[in-house]
């Protein structure tokens, strides 16, 4: 397939069957390989969409600075777009993220401001909001509340899925900014009667939930619970186990958040099988495993690998 530039090649990712993990010919799993995007993650879609919307409405002009709180993939995607389009970019990233993420961000030219580990992405959001107030000339695209995030999935990921899998009955994705689930979920609900939209939310170690009080909690502005059918919390052990299972049984080398999504999808598949319902379950492979090699996720003993993720933002 030919494109005018790298930015034009975002999206149109393959949907591949998972014949070995699917429990029966009537209950099938399908993986959308979002690691096949230019910077290797699903975030290329919302990043490019948010930049182009900001350009279109005049908020972002040549030479300006983009600011974004990110645990990695969105920042990496924005840095690539910023480099090609000539913007400076500053990312606020929690310090408890894998070293590969910082390396990649710098590689694409981003400046990184680290936020404290305790509080995870909550802290990154808080710090980024303070920096935005100090630098009114910077443009914070703010993935948690930018409608362009969900819209990119409504306009691209959703239609691609329906075109490749018209018989889709379930869609399973990770819940972070909620953009993927809101966008794809709305698109499918408008067109597929009875479709179920299932969220897999990573459950981190205690450090990440280190708020001073409950009122500091955070629900992304994009989140609309009515789009979801249900929502599962997946801990690091199940996520790691499924990440490895995806690799050994289907040959797909994915990041750890994909393991969490697969875990939820397998739960859905098991339920459908038990109830004798036909199901075609599509799930998102958010990124490849490359950025997580240093965590030991793929080669350590499972107990050690789980311990190594304690306190880390692994999804």
């Amino acid at each position, binding site marked *: 397939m030919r494109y005018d530039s790298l930015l034009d090649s975002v999206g149109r990712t393959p949907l591949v069957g998972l014949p070995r993990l699917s429990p029966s010919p009537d209950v099938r799993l399908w993986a959308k390989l979002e690691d096949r995007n230019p910077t290797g993650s699903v975030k290329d879609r919302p990043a490019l969409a948010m930049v182009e919307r900001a350009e279109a409405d005049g908020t972002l002009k040549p030479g300006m600075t983009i600011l974004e709180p990110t645990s990695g993939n969105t920042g990496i995607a924005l840095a690539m777009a910023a480099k090609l389009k000539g913007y400076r970019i500053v990312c606020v990233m929690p310090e408890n993220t894998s070293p590969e993420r910082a390396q990649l961000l710098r590689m694409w030219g981003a400046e990184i401001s680290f936020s404290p580990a305790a509080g995870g992405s909550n802290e990154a959001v808080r710090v980024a909001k303070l920096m935005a107030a100090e630098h009114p000339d910077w443009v914070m695209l703010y993935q948690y509340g930018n409608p362009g995030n969900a819209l990119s999935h409504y306009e691209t990921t959703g239609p691609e899925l329906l075109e490749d899998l018209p018989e889709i009955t379930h869609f399973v994705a990770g819940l972070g900014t909620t953009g993927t689930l809101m966008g794809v979920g709305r698109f499918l609900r408008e067109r597929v009667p009875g479709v179920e939209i299932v969220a897999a939310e990573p459950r981190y170690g205690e450090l990440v*939930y280190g708020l001073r009080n*409950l009122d500091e*909690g955070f629900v992304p502005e994009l989140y609309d619970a009515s789009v979801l059918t249900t929502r599962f919390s997946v801990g690091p052990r199940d996520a790691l186990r499924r990440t490895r299972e995806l690799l050994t049984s289907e040959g797909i080398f994915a990041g750890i958040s994909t393991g969490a999504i697969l875990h939820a999808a397998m739960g859905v598949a098991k339920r459908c099988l038990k109830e004798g319902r036909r199901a075609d379950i599509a799930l998102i492979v958010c990124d490849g495993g490359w950025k997580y090699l240093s965590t030991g996720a793929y080669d350590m003993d499972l107990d050690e690998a789980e311990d190594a993720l304690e306190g880390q933002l692994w999804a």
Partner: protein
Amino acid sequence: MAIEVRIPTILRQYTDGAKAVEGSGSTLAELISDLETRHPGLKDRLVEGDALRRFVNVYLNDEDVRFLGGLQTTVDDGDAVTVLPAVAGG
């Protein structure tokens, strides 16, 4: 048998530092009321009016109770309930 309830760090002041406590009841609301008898103050941090507080997530066997039946969700002996504050992901 009883229902195990995992408590996040931020609410352990109500459970004498315990990471998990046990309780009983046939619904989540009853379970929380039962916990309140031994851990006073906990209920008010979890519930506001007749719903869970905005920044509190409760999972029954890893599924978000807001999609099951909220406070009226049926619970059984042997179930695992996890309470977590809502935080940013992504």
